């Protein structure tokens, strides 16, 4: 019979323990885990980037539902355990349900401390602890106004930066004279305060909150010196307290945290504890690395290896605010017998301080330049005697023993025991052997197999360097894929940052996101132009010089430098007049090839550049506009003849196709978009390999999406069934708008849907009426700026320079 392991708390510590246990191949336990939050285990450290808009919730999930299923873990979310019955070895939840255990793991974590001043229960006063808090803060940020963050520690500053990026006017109140006084000395704190204020966040130190003012909702804060500050939102980030109530009531020994032995046993040997609720050797920890070390010990012990013991941790800190590099480790209090080494470059914003005791490193503070944090951490943990390199140690590892090394050589020189990922305690040897033994080839692979760089992500560079060292040239650093060589950022990061930082021009993006080239390249410029265009409709001015020639000239360049021209033919329907006009144009301009395309249009191939405007003028005169056959946008809507003619037709598929084309034309999308409408399931218009397809049936319309018949061949998946044409329009425009807002440049709908999940697309478009309607509305809003025939604009004289050479050069001048 399997033993029953019950876990209270579904946070990072508990999740990591289970993972360690399963990694050992252990199947001795039936695991039940209770989580108070109504969701799976996510990376709490990444709440700050979620708040600032740089990440999404989906990206910070550590274990999805699938993981619990695969490992046979009975996950109970949204359930609060209110009592432990030690005598009968069971736990009882709020509703009185009982679950018995053989081993119990308490992982209740901590709760945010709320200063009990008058008004702390008003609406608009929140803590910064879980995703619900982040939701509340984002809602407040959407309304704008003033935010006050009480607490200038790690969490408070991350909250402040996030709210500021969301557009709020933010003030940080800090009781102590300097920010982050537990991790930073006053010099580094000064540089930090300066940097924070430069970003437009006000900092008030020595600020003691006397009361929070407001009737129902917070209105202001009064400090004890009488100052009053207006506030629409107050975030309390003054610290956390171990959550010990449940343990204490069960009669376990509790001090500040739950007292635990080196085996992380509580005073009841069948009850273990892990995480921020633990007190071990009079220390309580609030950072992830120690929790993971504890988790590892428990997993080993549960697996029968009692030699594993937890002996305490040295913690280090990094601030996760984009653009601020800050690191601290160990103890840096002034003391007799301690010496400091300081390097200060105020103009460069760099400050480093090392604290030595008996020629050993006991603490370090780095600000502005943190590249050597791994090395200092190692020196400190290993207690290395540094007397030999005392004079140069502050300059970092590269400076020791000879000329400076390149970063790759520095990583190569690290011993196998060197810790690469501080969050998850992964050393170099483990990563390198995993790369070799398991044939890993990307940072994502390494994350999956070793957890290195899976938490805060600051060691991603080191992991990449290890991959490149181990694999040589075969390492493909494209995953995670930077947009192009001009930036390390991925498409998704750039899209989010454009929104979060309200960047509205290509130069602004390149400045703010620290592009490495002054003018981008042919890969990033068209992508940025699209992102800006789709994010700020009506506001952003299209940058023609950032468009590929086809979109700049609204015709397709051919291999001989001529162009092809495709007039729009709504739904594939044409008329004798249109055909005559096309024939006339072909004659008049001696267009060598006239061809019917796969999308039911007529293509005029071999038009000389200087004839383009005249060709367009003639086509315009016959009532035709650009068919956008060149566009990352709507191309064609292919139709069959439908019930007007066909004996099997069930609906007006041609009419619906025309309606769709008239609504969607002109829109720019990440990649081309092709549609088709078939009048019956015989599917003559081949709707099931299009980006969006509609199959008419007796009862209405079957909507399809995510098909392809190009480089890849893929049948569509069903979105849903609807009954009216109006619904077809609403669902389709919403779907395309979602794709416009989320797709990466050049990513077709099927790739986008695969990346974000076909099910998620259905959830947003089908299950969530409100979102669908808003998306559809946003699509129509954008269309009012986009449905302009580009041919007519050229015919009317726009960008005439595009089509004419500079005045001809007389022959004599050329001699």
């Amino acid at each position: 019979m399997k033993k029953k392991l019950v876990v209270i708390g579904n946070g990072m510590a508990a999740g990591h323990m289970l993972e360690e246990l399963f990694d050992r191949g252990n199947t001795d336990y039936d695991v039940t885990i209770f989580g108070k939050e109504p969701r799976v285990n996510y990376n709490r450290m990444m709440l700050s980037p979620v708040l600032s808009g740089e990440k999404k919730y989906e990206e910070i999930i550590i274990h999805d539902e699938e993981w619990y299923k695969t490992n046979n873990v009975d996950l109970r979310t949204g359930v609060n355990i209110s009592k432990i019955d030690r005598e009968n070895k069971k736990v009882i939840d709020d509703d009185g349900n009982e679950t018995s255990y053989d081993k119990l793991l308490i992982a209740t974590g901590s709760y945010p401390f709320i200063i009990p001043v008058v008004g702390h229960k008003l609406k608009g006063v929140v803590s910064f602890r879980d995703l619900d808090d982040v939701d509340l803060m984002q809602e407040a940020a959407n309304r704008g106004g003033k935010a006050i963050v009480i607490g200038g520690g790690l969490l408070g500053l991350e909250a402040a930066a996030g709210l500021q990026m969301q557009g709020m006017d933010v003030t940080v109140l800090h009781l102590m004279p300097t920010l982050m006084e537990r991790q930073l000395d006053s010099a580094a704190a000064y540089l930090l305060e300066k940097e924070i204020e430069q970003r437009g966040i006000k900092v008030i130190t020595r600020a003691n909150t006397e009361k929070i003012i407001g009737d129902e909702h917070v209105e202001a804060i009064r400090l004890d010196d009488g100052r009053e500050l207006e506030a629409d939102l107050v975030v309390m980030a003054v610290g956390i307290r171990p959550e010990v109530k449940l343990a204490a009531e069960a009669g376990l020994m509790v001090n500040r945290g739950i007292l635990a032995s080196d085996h992380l046993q509580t005073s009841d040997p069948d009850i273990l504890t892990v995480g921020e609720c633990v007190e071990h050797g009079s220390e309580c920890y609030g950072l992830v690395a120690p929790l993971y070390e504890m988790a590892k010990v428990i997993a080993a012990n549960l697996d029968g290896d009692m030699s594993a013991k937890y002996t305490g941790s040295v913690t280090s800190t990094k601030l996760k605010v984009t653009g601020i590099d800050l690191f601290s480790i160990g103890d840096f209090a002034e003391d007799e017998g301690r010496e400091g080494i300081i390097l200060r470059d105020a103009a460069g914003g760099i400050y480093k301080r090392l604290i030595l005791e008996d020629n050993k490193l006991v603490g370090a503070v780095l600000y502005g330049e943190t590249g050597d944090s791994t090395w200092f951490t190692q020196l400190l943990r290993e207690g290395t005697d540094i007397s030999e390199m005392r004079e140069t140690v502050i300059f970092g590892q590269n400076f020791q023993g000879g000329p400076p090394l390149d970063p790759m050589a520095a990583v190569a020189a690290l011993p196998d025991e060197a810790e690469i990922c501080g969050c998850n305690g992964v050393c170099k040897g483990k990563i390198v052997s995993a790369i070799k033994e398991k044939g890993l080839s990307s940072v994502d692979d390494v994350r999956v197999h070793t957890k290195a760089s899976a938490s805060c992500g600051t060691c991603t560079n080191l992991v990449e360097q290890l991959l490149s060292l181990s694999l040589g040239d075969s390492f493909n650093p494209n995953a995670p894929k930077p947009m192009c060589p001009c930036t390390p950022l991925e498409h998704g990061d750039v899209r989010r940052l454009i929104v979060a930082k309200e960047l509205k021009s290509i130069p602004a993006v390149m400045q703010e996101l620290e592009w490495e080239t002054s003018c981008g390249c042919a890969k990033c410029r068209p992508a940025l132009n699209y992102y800006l265009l789709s994010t700020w409709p009506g506001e952003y001015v299209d940058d023609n010089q950032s468009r590929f020639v086809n979109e700049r000239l609204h015709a397709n360049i051919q291999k001989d430098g001529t162009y092809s021209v495709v007039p729009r033919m709504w739904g594939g329907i044409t008329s004798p007049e249109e055909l005559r006009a096309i024939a006339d144009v072909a004659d008049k301009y001696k267009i060598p090839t006239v061809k019917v395309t796969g999308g039911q249009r007529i293509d005029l191939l071999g038009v000389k550049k200087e004839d383009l405007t005249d060709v367009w003028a003639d086509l315009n005169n016959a009532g035709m506009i650009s068919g956008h056959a060149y566009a990352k946008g709507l191309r064609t809507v292919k139709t069959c003849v439908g019930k007007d003619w066909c004996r099997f037709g069930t609906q007006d598929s041609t009419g619906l196709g025309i309606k769709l084309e008239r609504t969607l034309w002109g829109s720019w999308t990440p990649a081309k978009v092709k549609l088709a409408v078939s009048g019956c399931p015989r599917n003559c218009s081949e709707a099931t390999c299009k980006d969006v397809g509609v199959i008419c049936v007796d009862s209405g319309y079957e909507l399809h999406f995510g098909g392809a018949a190009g480089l890849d061949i893929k049948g569509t998946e069903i979105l849903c069934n609807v009954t009216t044409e109006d619904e077809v329009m609403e669902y389709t425009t919403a779907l395309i708008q979602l794709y416009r807002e989320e797709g990466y440049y050049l990513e077709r709908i099927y790739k986008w849907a695969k990346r974000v999940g076909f099910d998620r697309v259905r959830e947003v478009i089908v299950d969530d009426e409100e979102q669908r309607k808003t998306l559809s509305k946003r699509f129509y809003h954008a269309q009012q700026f986009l449905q302009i025939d580009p041919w007519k604009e050229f015919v009317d004289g726009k960008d005439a320079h595009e089509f004419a050479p500079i005045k001809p050069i007389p022959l004599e001048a050329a001699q």
Partner: protein
Amino acid sequence: MTKENNWVELCQLSEIPERGCRVVVTDEIKIAIFRTHTDDVYAIEDKCPHLGGALSEGIVHGAQVTCPLHNLVINLVNGEALGPEPMCVKSFDVKKEDGKVYLDLVPVKKEAA
């Protein structure tokens, strides 16, 4: 520059779009005149050394242009391709003076490598 230049006046700098290009056509050759985001001007033959694509239609970034046909990147300063194989297009001397652009129609001769 060692040779004597024979300058031909082309146009105002403002007639060439920023990060863009205009073409000069003679009986023998098409020359693409580029203007960068820093208002520098460069002139190279409008013919990609790869498969003859019109470089004048490429996206201009820094002092480089990407050919629209197969994305070969050409250095505007000397006409050399930034690809795996050494390839080069003819380049020409250009200058701007008083807001006007002048071109020397005699190609810059590469010194023997």
